[in-house]
């Protein structure tokens, strides 16, 4: 079921990954998967892979080997091993994401860092008068909170005008997103403004949906948006990631969420283009001015081991039938199945159609639970963790005018290779128990 590696694969989706999955049928077994994740707390139904990801034991061991190598003789490591190792990781990523050239691929700590890198150059654009005060930056209303703050810290502070694209939730189709985005771009261009940057999520965090990035990037190009930055924190290992197809200027994704790397590692793709200005890592060190990829590979003495284990991660992934494509497909199918099971059990609905999901899905929680604010979502989440051993994030959807007894709380369940169907049953039963007890969030203390 949820954890079976033998889940039938309907056809082989196209793959551009250079390292093809093993052809021999000695795929990883369920017992081996369980062993790889035996360091997870066994008492927790861990259905929140989307937040912090997961890392198998064999990759943790590889990471510790790298750490020890460094500690054994750091000078030698710095001069002989580090750059080579990072370059190898970058090369693998370049293949995975179908980038043209390894120079386009920098490794950074996380998508938050990548956002700071892109937005910092936007801020310089304003400060150095390349952009006019009041020129716009467009982002989705559901942009990640930390990215919104980064936009405030860099764009607003430097004199930019920020436009949020409102999106409905629940969502019915991509058309709703595209329509709102187009409207927002028009607002951005009003009064002779230029839209200097569009920040588009590939998979929004909360509420979670897959955004039609290809179409949005096309629209941006048609409308003369200067630069397009796709925040794809979740994407790699979760949905298809193809730089040439998507066509953005900048694209970042974490590898510690859905690609089995230890915390933390992400890539920032920067399309080679004469109009894209030089980007810099905000932590400046010896390699300043040598290009972002080289700058990012040395930002002072650090533990770079998470950035060096990508080859080991690929080995792990290729033990699964279909490699990463197989994992993605099975995760998606299972999470949709579990989502539908929960929606049926609670008498609610999904937050979007299955085709707008990847390895995560939003499900409405029964209205009687009384989720009336964001604070309630935190309280309920803590309650589920502490009382029921269920780890799941919850989203508060403010009711629209005139809505009565609407579903305002949605959970976001994830499915990763270590999950079992019991995890979702545990959650289902916990909510059912709360409903039968007449529980409301108001009963929980702050």
């Amino acid at each position, binding site marked *: 079921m949820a954890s079976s590696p033998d889940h039938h694969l309907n056809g082989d989706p196209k793959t551009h990954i250079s390292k093809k999955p093993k052809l021999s049928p000695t795929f990883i077994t369920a017992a081996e998967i369980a062993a790889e994740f035996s360091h997870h707390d066994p008492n927790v139904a861990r259905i929140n892979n989307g937040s912090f990801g997961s890392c198998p034991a064999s990759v943790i061991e590889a990471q510790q080997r790298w750490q020890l190598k460094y500690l054994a*003789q750091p000078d030698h490591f710095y001069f002989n091993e580090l750059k080579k190792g990072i370059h190898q990781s970058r090369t693998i990523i370049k293949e995975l994401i179908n980038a043209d050239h390894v120079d386009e691929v920098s490794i950074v700590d996380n998508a938050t860092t990548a956002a700071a890198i892109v937005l910092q150059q936007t801020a310089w654009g304003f400060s150095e008068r390349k952009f006019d005060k009041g020129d716009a930056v467009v982002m989705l209303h559901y942009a990640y909170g930390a990215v919104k703050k980064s936009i405030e810290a860099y764009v607003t502070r430097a004199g930019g005008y920020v436009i949020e694209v409102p999106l409905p939730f629940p969502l019915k189709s991509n058309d709703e997103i595209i329509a709102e985005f187009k409207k927002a771009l028009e607002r951005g261009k009003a009064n002779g403004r230029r839209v200097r940057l569009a920040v588009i999520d590939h998979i929004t965090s909360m509420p979670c949906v897959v955004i039609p990035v290809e179409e949005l990037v096309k629209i941006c190009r048609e409308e003369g948006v200067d630069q397009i930055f796709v925040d794809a924190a979740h994407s790699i290992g979760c949905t298809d990631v193809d730089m040439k197809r998507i066509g953005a200027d900048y694209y970042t994704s974490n590898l510690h969420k859905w690609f089995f790397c230890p915390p933390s590692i992400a890539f920032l793709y920067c399309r080679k283009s004469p109009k894209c200005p030089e980007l810099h890592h905000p932590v400046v060190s010896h390699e300043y001015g040598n290009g972002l990829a080289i700058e990012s590979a040395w*930002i002072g003495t650090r533990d770079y081991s998470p950035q060096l284990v990508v080859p080991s991660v690929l080995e792990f992934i290729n033990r699964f039938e279909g490699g990463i494509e197989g994992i993605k497909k099975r995760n998606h199918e299972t999470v949709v199945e579990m989502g539908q099971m929960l929606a049926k059990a609670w008498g609610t609905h999904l937050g979007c159609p299955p085709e707008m999901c990847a390895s995560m899905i939003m499900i409405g929680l029964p209205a009687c639970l009384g989720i009336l604010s964001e604070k309630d979502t935190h309280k309920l989440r803590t309650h589920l963790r502490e009382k029921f051993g269920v780890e799941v994030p919850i989203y508060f959807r403010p009711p629209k005018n005139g809505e009565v007894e609407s579903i305002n709380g949605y959970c976001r369940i994830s499915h990763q290779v270590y999950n079992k169907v019991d995890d979702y049953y545990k959650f289902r039963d916990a909510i059912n128990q709360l409903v039968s007890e007449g529980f409301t969030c108001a009963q929980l203390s702050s």
Partner: protein
Amino acid sequence: MAEKIIMFFRYYVPRFLCPNLSFRISRPSNRHYHKLNHNDTQTQVSVKQKPSSFITDTEIQSEFSHHAPGIARINNGSFGCCPASVISSLHQWQLKLLRQPDDFYLNELPNGILESRTVIKDLINADDVEEVSIVDNVSTAVAIVLKQTAWSFVEGKFDKGDAVIMFRCTYGAVKNSIKAYFLRAGGYAIEVPFNFPVTSNEEIVNEFKTALRREKGIGRRVRLAVIDHVTCMPSFVMPVKELVKICKEEGVEQVLVDAAHAVGCVDVDMNEIRADFYTGNLYKWFFCPPAVAFLYCRKSVMTHLDLHHPVVSHDYGNGLVKETGWVGTRDYSPYLVLPSVMEFVNRFEGGAEGIRNRNHDAVVEMGKMLAEAWGTNLGCPPEMCSSMVMVGLPACLGVLSDEDAMKLWELLCKKFSVEVKIHYQNPKDGELAPITGYVRICHQIYNKFEDYCRLRDAINQLVRDGFNCGNLEVCMFLPSSTFLVCRLPFIFGFFPRTRF
């Protein structure tokens, strides 16, 4: 007397073989963790000494048995070191995170960081734990401070041409950061020269005063001073207290002390030094794993300056302490091991101070031994040394450029298994056969007398063989063509070389 006896045994008694790994890689599947003295409930860090049983020499060697054998590792200053018990603690934290990350990040991480910040606050004698933020390394701390100066230019608080003052030996990465933020935003850089070898604090102070007054005299506003506490290359201890005082007297608005080496190496007292910003790495001389550092910001400064971590996350606007406590999903475990490090340090007689004093005494003794063996000199008086000292190399070796220094460093590493940094010092005009090459030797608790003997003998052999740097081919570490373009400046010394 007791200390001399201990030093004798450490230097002259042959070391016993230790197992290669004194700790196990903690396999999650077998859940076996290396025993250590980690106390999960410890909130107040005690700096009191454990009575009697101090760490033994065998235990020290065991703690560092993961160091590559057969190398005379006399370059602790570059990358530091981390004992096995602290590595074990690090792995425990990492596994805790991986076990249940949501719970960890929400509940354990903030407490753990506060505990570490409290340890640091006590170590550096800061008034308030709110003055102490934890960051990855000094490079990050410098970016934080310089970024706010860049905004000051952009937002009109500073005028174009306002200056930053620093010494010529300011660390290369810091100079780059100044270029990336302060200069790019319209500022001007003043570099203060000084003579090396240094002979006294007074000459340093005078050079600084002269440069500062000269610039002020032509109407330049000096907004920021960046002062090393312990310089990297060439290495000596700056009279920071006096320099900070002069800055304040001369109206320099902000003083940043780059103390990358200081903690664990020299006395560090915020109430004595009184800088506005003070940053130090803890993985160099304070036994932390890579990488963890702190940025101290004087309370009076924080109230009117807008300081932000450049990696903006959820806590943006909630104060630097909170911002640095979360910069996105990361492995924060190096930030969390400070209590374990204190436990380690307190196994030594005299604790951190005892270690510092013994390192200093030993490195000065070794420096003098080498200078005598080579017929050269130290780079500064012993009282201006920390746990590192510069020792002149025989002039006949012909270290006549940064490139020569790199070549010699590589040769010592590859041929003699000696890891030590080499510095090229520009000769003063008119000097004949000057000593232009210096080694920077370090002493940390794992070092042995034989390490320095090996260096001594290696240089003596090179001298006997008539070796000259001019005879060596270009750096054998010449990287692959992929990196050639970017590494060339590095090799030929246009970059302030990686002189960690």
